[in-house]
């Protein structure tokens, strides 16, 4: 009986090993299963989903206008102080002083891409862009001003 058990063990072991080898042999011969993406070469055909959280940007339309009112809701919502809103006082055509945004300072090096600022904005001024190549040689380039120079707020947003 011992001999029978011994031989069965040996055959069972060899069979399990051959089954595993067959699977890797299959992958060795079928090259169309390879799913590697050749990254720097495929930048044109790469399309990231629209919800991908790459960095925060403020979209401007063709008249260089944005939708930000300077309400600082994004600054309050951000967990680690990535956004700083600097406001100034504009003089409206009626002669009254109105608060407007001077600069929206965004520290890309601190951002955790948690999306809380985008969700908190009441006027949909900021969205997440799909860029992911953020490395720079100079750290100062990572502090971005989100609103273009000389741009002003669109009509009718408040």
């Amino acid at each position, binding site marked *: 009986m011992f001999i029978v058990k011994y031989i069965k063990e040996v055959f069972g072991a060899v069979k399990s*090993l051959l089954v*595993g*080898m067959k699977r*890797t042999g299959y992958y*060795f011969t079928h090259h169309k299963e390879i*799913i590697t993406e050749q990254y720097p070469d495929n930048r044109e055909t790469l399309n990231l989903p629209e919800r991908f959280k790459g960095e925060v940007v403020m979209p401007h339309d063709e008249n260089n206008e944005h939708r930000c009112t300077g309400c600082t809701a994004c600054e309050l919502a951000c967990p680690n102080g990535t956004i700083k809103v600097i406001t100034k006082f504009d003089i409206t055509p009626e002669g009254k002083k109105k608060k407007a945004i001077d600069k929206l300072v965004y520290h890309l090096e601190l951002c955790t891409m948690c999306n809380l600022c985008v969700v908190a904005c009441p006027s949909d001024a900021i969205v997440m862009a799909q860029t992911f190549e953020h490395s720079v040689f100079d750290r100062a380039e990572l502090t971005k001003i989100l609103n273009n120079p000389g741009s002003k707020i669109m009509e009718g947003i408040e």
Partner: protein
Amino acid sequence: MWSLAGITGSIQQWLQETFSPTWALILQMVLVGVAVISLFAVLGLVLVMMERKVSAWMQIRLGPNRVGPKGMLQSFADTLKLLVKEGMTPGGADKFLFNLAPFLAIIVAMLLMAPIAFARDFQIWNINIGVLYVSAISSISVISILMAGWASNNKYSLMGAMRSGAQIVSYELSAGLAILSIVVLTGTLDMNEIILSQSDGWWIFKGHIPVIIAFVIFIIAVTAETNRAPFDLAEAESELTAGFHTEYSGMKFALFFLAEYVNVFIVCSIGATLFLGGWMPLHIGNWQGFNHVMDYIPSSVWFMGKTFFLIFLIMWFRWTFPRLRIDQLLNLEWKYLLPIGMFNLLLITVMAILGWHF
């Protein structure tokens, strides 16, 4: 059709005409030495490249594919990197042994090249105890591993070297028994005679089931001898961070690395010689027409093809199976491979006496 034996024959003739006999001999030895070293270098490059590509395709990814067309020049880049690395000797290391160990590994590999028949009439040393010579010299490789582990003054290296020493010494027995099976069938230790005896069919076909069992045992034992996975706990990366060659860097590490790959080549070529017929083309009994067609393919191509097939098999093992623990490894040898090997040898002896092979 030109053949390698013809080239060496004409070189020898030219040397003997031009120089005195002593000088001719010395020049021949120098030429052979240079040829062996360059064969090492080329083999190292080719085998490393092959390993990386084979492993990549099995793991559903591309291998190196940036350096050179299809990544074929990757080995040159690797060699360049290893050459310019700083070779440090650790603080409390035994300097003499530490520096000697990689060289010993390479010397053993070079010595083993001597009796291998690469093509018809193309051997470095046509010794009539070729098989015994190979068995004996391969036992010396243990010393280099133990030296490396001890001289590194590092607990991990020592543990890796101890494990490896036990493993190699045990598996030599099984490999020896498998080799003996063929020796019993052919009745000679001479490599050339063994190959010539396979002119009507390779032993793996002629001696049927017992020789196939011997072949399987041989492949397993030889994978363990060269410290390849699944028996590579001497250099187990996830447990002991490179084991006995942890402390080596630069050229000395390159020598260990090279020695391992050349050892794989050598044992596969021994296996190809004994079981698959060496440089003998595939002949089937008395089918003259078929044999004649097979003879057109040069014998060096046959030899290299068989050896690389066995190398591919050993690489296939590495990338499919996990590692065995040291006690399971020794268990496998002493309780399974050795009894089966001995029983098999008995069967083959009976088979040889009664003539039950083809």
